[in-house]
């Protein structure tokens, strides 16, 4: 998590402070979720954000990986009961959307 925190520290715009905090919380929750897919997805997204901050992934590659992960999440959600689906969706699709729409653009602007 410290690598993620280091990456996110580069985003200093207070306008996205809430989004940053929400993102960190969703990643933390995802990493301790009971489903292996949700755990793996959170770890991967964390890694991609770190790689993006180090310019080891291009913005385009990041976008494609996140887009593909959303498709994987849809396949995962097909297997979930209705009761589990909402929580799982929050920890997969929603956090991926947050990364793509708020975190990554601000990170790219900061580095």
């Amino acid at each position, binding site marked *: 998590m410290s690598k993620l925190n280091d990456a996110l520290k580069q985003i200093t715009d207070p306008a996205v402070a809430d989004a940053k905090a929400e993102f960190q919380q969703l990643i933390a929750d995802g990493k301790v979720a*009971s*489903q*292996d*897919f949700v755990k*793996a997805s959170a770890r*991967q997204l964390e890694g*991609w954000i770190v*790689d993006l901050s180090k310019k*080891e*992934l291009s913005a385009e*590659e990041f976008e*494609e*990986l996140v*887009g*593909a*992960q959303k*498709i*994987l999440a*849809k*396949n*995962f959600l*097909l*297997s*979930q*009961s209705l009761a*589990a689906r909402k929580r799982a969706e929050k920890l997969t699709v929603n956090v991926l959307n947050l990364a793509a729409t708020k975190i990554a653009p601000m990170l790219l602007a900061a580095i």
Partner: protein
Amino acid sequence: MNNSSPHLSVLRGVLACLVAVLFSSCVTTDEPQSLARVQQLQSTHLTFIDTHTSAAAPASWDQSGFDSSVGRISQMFTQAAEADSKVTDRRKFVENSSILFQGDASRVQKNHFLSPGYAKNRKTQIQQNYDLLLAPATPAATGAVSSVGTN
């Protein structure tokens, strides 16, 4: 006229219906064949990524060979989706997996290669995607196999 003809005719009709029902149930519940098709899609997609992974664009580019390869693989996805057309979740899974392949095909079409870093991440994703169906690890996902994998 033979008095048994109408009975025979009815019997033939019943037998024909039974054969039709048996045949259609075989087609829609042939789980091993369906899983084998999905496994083949997985290995084909991973091979496609390996084939096009490189540190830089190749010196020469065979567009017709690439088109032919993408066409053949796309056809495999289409046929797999059609074969599972009556198993809604399985069909959706195959269609979503096809979208993942098309994403890679578009990227290779555009750049003529996949960078090693991207390919590594992508292969992890593809493995993870197919594991959802072929090698579920958690109790929740195991339950999924019955919902995704059967009629």
